[in-house]
């Protein structure tokens, strides 16, 4: 099959296998629904999170409207935390467009996490709902486009379930306890991630933004974070992406050493230097700032930023975070056009 006739799904999956795809795919491992997509459906953002049909329809709109090469579900960061007993706030009553957050933390201990890591967990919270949404998407898009999903990394999920401040201090004060806690968290993440990959999800991102080098020293990353991230990589089915935003240059060699199918970085990590550090063999996705590029900039800015990502050697043009719904349609179009028109 020539590259010209490849489906978007193949372009993404081949990229994640380390094959060179030209032009590189333009897709995301994290949420992307636009106000335009929501308007087309007549849905409110706050209503998407608890309804598989609406979640599926909304997730497909960025592909349908703009040719963005993925469908990613869900949109929020609360799925695993809810399954672990936390309570989510969808902000259904507010006028502002807000991403759900955890309003009640279950504060499970290491022991409780180990007990929770059984197949029964997979029936809790919205995990079945997300799988149902994946089924609905697949029925509609077939093999045309890849369906992505994500789980939080061990430290970041820990921050949803417990007080982040306790975990941050624990990483210095009681590193051995933290290593044990994150090890238990890794089992939960592998369980949920593999379940998603077995049930209609084509690729999965592990989002460990809480452990960015803006927050934790490379020393703590190596000692406390790395073992759990490596455990996830060793046990999670492929294809998988490790995503950490912020400046991760000091730890990118360790990220690569974990062994994920690909790494995803954001605009605070310079691509050329990242590439120098990890070499050609690591698939790197990145690295534009979605808010500055798609929401506040002009279409021309968006075109230039995306083209620059390609010239800097990314294997896929990937946002550093969720695409915020108010992204300008003309900017999204310009970004996707730039990726198609730019070659290295």
């Amino acid at each position, binding site marked *: 099959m020539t590259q010209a006739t490849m489906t978007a799904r193949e372009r993404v999956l081949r990229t994640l296998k380390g094959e060179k795809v030209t032009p590189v795919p333009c897709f995301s491992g994290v949420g992307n629904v636009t106000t335009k997509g929501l308007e087309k459906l007549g849905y409110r953002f706050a209503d998407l999170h608890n309804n598989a049909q609406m979640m599926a329809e909304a997730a497909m709109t960025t592909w349908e409207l703009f040719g963005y090469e993925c469908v990613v579900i869900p949109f929020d960061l609360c799925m695993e935390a809810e399954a672990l007993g936390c309570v989510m706030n969808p902000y259904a009553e*507010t006028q502002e467009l*807000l991403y759900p957050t955890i309003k009640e933390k279950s504060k499970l201990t290491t022991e409780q996490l180990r007990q929770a890591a059984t197949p029964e967990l997979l029936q809790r919270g919205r995990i079945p709902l997300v799988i149902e949404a994946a089924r609905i998407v697949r029925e509609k898009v077939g093999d045309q486009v890849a369906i992505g999903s994500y789980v939080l990394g061990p430290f970041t999920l820990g921050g949803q379930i417990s007080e982040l*401040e306790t975990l941050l201090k624990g990483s210095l004060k009681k590193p051995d306890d933290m290593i044990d806690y994150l090890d238990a968290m890794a089992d939960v993440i592998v369980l949920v991630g593999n379940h998603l990959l077995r049930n209609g999800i084509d690729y999965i991102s592990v989002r460990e933004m809480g452990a960015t080098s803006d*927050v934790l020293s490379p020393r703590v990353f190596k000692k406390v974070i790395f073992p759990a991230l490596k455990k996830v990589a060793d046990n999670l089915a492929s294809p998988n992406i490790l995503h950490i935003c912020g400046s991760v240059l000091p730890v990118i060699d360790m990220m690569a050493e974990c062994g994920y199918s690909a790494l995803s970085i954001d605009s605070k990590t310079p691509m050329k230097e990242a590439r120098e550090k990890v070499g050609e063999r690591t698939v790197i996705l990145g690295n534009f700032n979605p808010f500055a590029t798609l929401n506040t900039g002009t279409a021309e800015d968006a075109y230039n930023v995306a083209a620059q990502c390609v010239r800097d050697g990314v294997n896929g043009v990937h946002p550093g975070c*969720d695409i915020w719904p108010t992204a300008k349609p003309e900017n999204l179009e310009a970004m996707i056009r730039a990726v198609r028109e730019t070659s290295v």
Partner: protein
Amino acid sequence: MALDSAKKSELLKKLEQGVVEFEDDEVRDAAQEWVDSGEDTYDAIFDGLVAGMEEVGRLFSAQEYFVPEMLMAADSLYIGLDILKPHMVARDSGVKGTVVIGTVQGDVHDIGKNIVKMMFDVAGFNVYDLGRDVALEDFLKKQLETNSDIVCLSAMMTTTMMGMPKVIEMIKEKNPNCRIMIGGAPITDDIVGKFGADATAKDASNALEEAVKMVVSLREIQKEANAKN
């Protein structure tokens, strides 16, 4: 028993180093010894604890310290502050102000906000902390209730930052003299202007400096207004 100058500088060093190295016991003992001497604790707070926190800020900027180190140092500082503050002789510095502070709705990240709050606590501001994920109109309510000089809004995410201009507009409409400071990872000087805020700061020490400046300028405005009446 009064402290001689050698003992004083020894205790100040202990307080400062104790904060920098998060030696809680060191800080506790030194603070207690200072209090037991019966001396005013003003110097112990500012030349000991705060000097330590300034060093922590420097180490943070130099990327030798990260967030966990900052949090541990803040804990040590509060241990000392709880012991020393009740014994501080009040000073009429003319800059004591009232601050309402919180993280805006949709954002549950409050670590940065707590560090800034700590600096206000140290400096003797009256601080009303609304916590995190604060409904936008609650900032206005609290400002009106306390008639605070300053409102500080924090956001760690670009997306939740978008709630800030709404709060600023609500407050400025009711109380144009109220000064508004915004902070957090996505905030730049450019955004301060766009959102109609009065200031931001690159770290907690600078936030305190800005706040003091704001209160001084507010007091001048009030003085002028009173003179006209």
